[in-house]
């Protein structure tokens, strides 16, 4: 066997790696997992404490111990450590996936009962313990739309500045502060929008556009970051070819660089929208809560899906469960919108991106 000071040379064989001298069969891992599952199920059933979660936990634990012991006997301590760590890491991944599936499952399960025609077509004005979320849906679209209207031009122009024009101190300052902006807590962005409007329009004000401003503070750094990355990928030789033809810089940017990066820019914007469309906190402090449909961002409060869901939970009407149902339905709608945006963003990217050879 291996000894510290003596070289394993004399008489060393390829199979001298372990006491048993060999390797576990290929089906070893599955056998161990199966056996552990069976054992855990049996023990827990017998103890009367059977739940899916507990069984899973026990299975993983028992499997790890078993594979280590078996491997150590057959293959040696190093291989055993390798196997048990691989199993533990895989288990950790599984653990991380549980919340994802639980979330999607639970939101679907609890949200579907709340979905109805009424949910989508009527608001909650004057209705006690009932009503729908039309105002919230419209409000979400409105507020997010205005936020995008503000953020996208500014963000993309700033990204253009950083990649095409920027020099010296302004550039460094901008890069630094965009970094800072990505870290602003969402509620602080809301407070800022509130403070801004309060100074000009007096206290207690609540407006749809305030929410848009708050969301813009969050959205702009995201747009800048992703646009910057996409613009940087456009190779220098494309620009140089345009310059060599005598094209002025601004035309090069608008006719060559932007179209080449177009798919990436659109994707970046869509992903940014997906990120902020579910934001609640900044809107709680800016747009307020309202029961009726209001599609004018410049007058009066405006409702939004996320705040609506929060509100239905926080102050349910007389029929508590119905309110909760609506909250979940709003949550489901939100997730659906976000997922659709994410998937659409990737599809758009794949369909429209320009291959750069």
């Amino acid at each position: 066997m291996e000894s510290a000071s003596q070289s394993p040379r004399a008489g060393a064989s390829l199979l001298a790696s372990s006491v048993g001298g060999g390797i576990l069969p290929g089906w070893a891992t599955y056998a161990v997992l199966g056996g552990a599952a069976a054992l855990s199920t049996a023990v827990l059933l017998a103890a009367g404490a059977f739940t899916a979660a507990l069984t899973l936990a026990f299975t993983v634990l028992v499997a790890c111990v078993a594979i280590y012991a078996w491997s150590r006997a057959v293959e040696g301590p190093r291989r055993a450590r390798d196997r048990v760590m691989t199993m533990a890491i895989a288990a950790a991944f599984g653990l991380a996936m549980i919340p994802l599936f639980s979330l999607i499952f639970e939101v679907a399960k609890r949200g579907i009962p709340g979905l109805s025609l009424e949910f989508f077509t009527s608001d909650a004005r004057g209705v006690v313990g009932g009503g729908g979320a039309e105002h919230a849906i419209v409000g979400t679209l409105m507020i997010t739309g205005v936020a995008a209207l503000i953020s996208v031009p500014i963000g993309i122009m700033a990204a253009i500045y950083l990649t095409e024009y920027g020099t010296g101190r302004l550039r460094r300052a901008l890069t630094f502060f965009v970094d800072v902006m990505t870290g602003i807590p969402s509620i602080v962005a809301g407070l800022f929008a509130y403070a801004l409007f309060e100074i000009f329009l007096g206290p207690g004000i609540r407006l749809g556009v305030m929410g848009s401003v708050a969301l813009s503070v969050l959205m702009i750094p995201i747009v800048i970051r992703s646009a910057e990355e996409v613009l940087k990928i456009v190779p220098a030789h494309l620009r140089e070819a345009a310059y060599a033809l005598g094209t002025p810089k601004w035309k090069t940017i608008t006719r060559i660089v932007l179209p080449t990066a177009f798919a990436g820019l659109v994707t970046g914007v869509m992903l940014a929208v997906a990120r902020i469309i579910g934001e609640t906190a900044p809107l709680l402090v800016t747009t307020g809560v309202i029961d009726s449909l209001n599609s004018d961002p410049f007058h009066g409060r405006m409702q939004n899906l996320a705040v609506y869901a929060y509100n239905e939970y926080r102050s349910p009407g007389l029929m508590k469960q119905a309110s909760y149902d609506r909250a979940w339905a709003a949550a489901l709608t939100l997730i659906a919108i976000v997922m659709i945006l994410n998937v659409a963003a990737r599809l758009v990217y794949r369909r429209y991106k320009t291959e750069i050879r």
Partner: protein
Amino acid sequence: MLGAAGSKRSEARAGQVRTTAGAPAIGTSSGAAGAPSGRGAKTIEVKGVSLYYGDFQAVEDVTMKIEPNKVTALIGSSGCGKTTFLRALNRMHELTPGAAVEGEISLDGEDVYGAGVDPVQVRRLVGMVFQSPNPFPTMSVYENVAAGLSLNAKRMKKAEMDAVVERSLRGANLWEEVKDRLDKAGSGLSGGQQQRLCIARAIAVEPEVLLMDEPCSALDPVATLAIEDLIRELKDRYTIAIVTHNMQQAARASDLTAFFNLEKSGRPGRLIEIGPTETIFTKPAQQATEDYVSGRFG
């Protein structure tokens, strides 16, 4: 190729190699060259080995012997499979997804790809030094040399480990230069020193065979000569196979030379000729060999 008598295609996935056929029983040696050699260095016997990356065949039907206590140089133009072949000897080839090995490779008679053989154990016995020095950047010089040891030995007393580290560094002709900076980062050395550090690291685990893949290509001429001197010393204790595209190096440093070549690009590499270095360079048997060593191509 797939119909070669008695051989099965072995799908190489790390740790799960299925059989290559025709391997002699574990533990017996085959032929004179398989007899345990004087200082413990081993012979590598290669029979009918073909190497694949997925469907692409990189190397075709190589049969040769790598003699103990001698330096065998593998030469040939780039792309003819020398490195691929070298990496099959210590089962590094199979780490590439889709890579496959056919034929038989045995270490002192034991099939390297046999069932029940742990590739990790193979790599312990067959060490490798790479083209570009790769000391572990987060470890000191000492820790780098001891890296392989701390994997293998259960609990080495500090004094023992110190002794092994010193012995390995001396063996790599590096001791005098680093003995006062053993705890400094391995990446702080010059290129030549780093490569010698990697050699020290490789020999610290006392392999039977040392494979070197163009070890000097990233080094300056002075460092290169230092490594070549080192190789000449090392062959007393190890079997050495070195891939090089530098013919002068092969002529200087090796005892045997194997010449690999491609018919044309896209075809797999083949072993054209193997023999004593002097013969290969002065009176080669094959025309292609003569063309290569006299610089007419490659």
